[in-house]
């Protein structure tokens, strides 16, 4: 009985190991940012479909891992969800998409704009009523993102806040939940991915995106890099990319993947 089982397992392992005959030159490895990873995975699947015999493996681990692995040659392409820093100039970035975050309030809220200081005061609990920032006399419901969300990181980074500084009334997970919370609570304020919010606003959900530093929160302004609360989603390579890596990057920057980028609530670079 035991021997049979052992033979079964060994046989199984052997069969499985032998059948892995993928040539070296036809495999591409991407590692890095967990924000970019789901998008890269979808792009990879479409790329594989169009190029039979090619395999693209997407691994995650964070932007710094993407940079490290691309540098050391552990990955063909690194994924980085921010602009490269000056000390990372040994790598070449290829921007695939932009991610922007906008402040949203309920459509019935008369407040048309908030300064950065006002937003900070609201989120740290210094201001608790809309009348203090030019609105009606009603309490503010602060909607914050849950720990681990990249939008939270970007938001905190932009306003130089720590998550422990924030006095949140509601903590939410994804963009959709943020939009539902704000549209259902006239006194609330939240922040979500601009792509999602614009789509919802256009489709009649009672929310309004507020401008930041005078820049309207639109996908176009995110695309042009004018909107302050945004970041690039990059693929990075060291030196000259291999022909295969090059083909993949070209594909990831082409219009063929714009629907995939939008499905992940990011902003494609060129307009359609």
């Amino acid at each position, binding site marked *: *009985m035991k021997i049979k089982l052992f033979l079964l397992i060994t046989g199984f392992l052997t069969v*499985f190991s032998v059948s892995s005959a993928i040539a070296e030159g036809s495999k591409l490895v991407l590692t890095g940012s967990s924000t970019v990873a789901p998008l890269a995975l979808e792009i990879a699947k479409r790329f594989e479909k169009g190029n039979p015999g090619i395999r693209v493996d997407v*691994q995650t681990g964070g932007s710094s891992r993407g940079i490290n692995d691309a540098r050391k040659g552990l990955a063909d392409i690194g994924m980085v969800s921010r602009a490269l820093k000056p000390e990372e100039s040994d790598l070449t970035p290829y921007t695939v998409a932009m991610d922007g975050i906008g402040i949203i309030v309920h459509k019935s809220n008369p407040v048309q704009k908030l300064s950065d200081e006002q937003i900070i005061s609201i989120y740290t609990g210094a201001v608790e009523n809309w009348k203090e920032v030019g609105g009606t006399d009603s309490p503010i419901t602060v909607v914050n993102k849950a720990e681990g969300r990249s939008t939270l990181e970007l938001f905190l980074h932009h306003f130089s806040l720590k998550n422990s500084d924030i006095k949140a009334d509601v903590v939410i997970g994804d963009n959709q939940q943020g939009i539902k919370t704000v549209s259902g609570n006239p006194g609330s304020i939240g922040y979500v991915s601009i792509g999602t919010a614009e789509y919802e606003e256009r489709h009649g959900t009672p929310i309004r995106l507020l401008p930041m530093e005078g820049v309207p929160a639109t996908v176009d302004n995110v695309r042009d890099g004018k909107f302050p609360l945004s970041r690039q989603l990059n693929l990075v390579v060291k030196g000259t990319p291999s022909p295969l890596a090059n083909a993949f990057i070209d594909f990831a920057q082409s219009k063929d993947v714009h629907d995939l980028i939008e499905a*992940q609530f990011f902003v494609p670079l060129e307009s359609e």
Partner: protein
Amino acid sequence: MSDRIFSFVIWMSAAFVGAVFLWILGDILLKGIPHLSLSFLLEQPEDAGRSGGIFPVIVSTALILMVAVAVSVPFGLGVAVWLAEFSQTGRKAASSTRLTLDVLAGVPSIVYGLFGNAFFSIFLGLGFSIFSGGLTLACMILPVFIRTAEAGLSAVNHSWREGASALGMNKTSAIWHILLPSAAPAIVAGLILGIGRATAETAALIFTSGYVDRMPGSLMDSGRALAVHIYDLSMNVTGGDSAAYASALTLIAVIITFNMMAQAMTDQWLGKKVQRA
């Protein structure tokens, strides 16, 4: 009176633990069932896991577990037998082995993940693969499994060993026919603990078996484990929560199935031995 308070506290503790389990299970059932369907179990993930299914993820999880169990069971039993039956003479070696195992059992899984990534994936060149992931999990299972199995072996009444040698059985057949079968419940318990810990593992696997959600073609392919899939859907993918709950439900079913299989296999294998012996 104090007796009443005492039994009240005892009952409340039991009820509380039961309630926590039911709450978790209820939450997952409530949010997971609407998304769960046969096609969810049999299709490829699409749109970063929001739609489509989890079939390749289930297959990868099963393969990773198989590698882990196939490696850790023979190894672990060997070490446990050595610790319980052979190590009287080398007492120092045994106690330092036990200490090592106890320390290893308490090491956070992310440490195993980083070790697995550095050793199996990079140093041994196994890359991001189901094999790397399974071996990393085996390292993680081993300490708990060995210590439980050893405790089971040590708990076997000493007169059984004496009886075996009085009957002229040599050490090998005494271990094989008497000690291992009578320690079977403890061995299975250790295995179940190990499998449970391994199946729920994210940190040890995300850097070893990886993130690729394609159907694995071989053990050298990267394959996404269920726990990694759930983590990604709930933490990283906007609108992935319902798929995450359905995957969590599947994960619980997988753990229960594996436990039952382990139980049945050990019963069969070791039960026969007891009858024959």
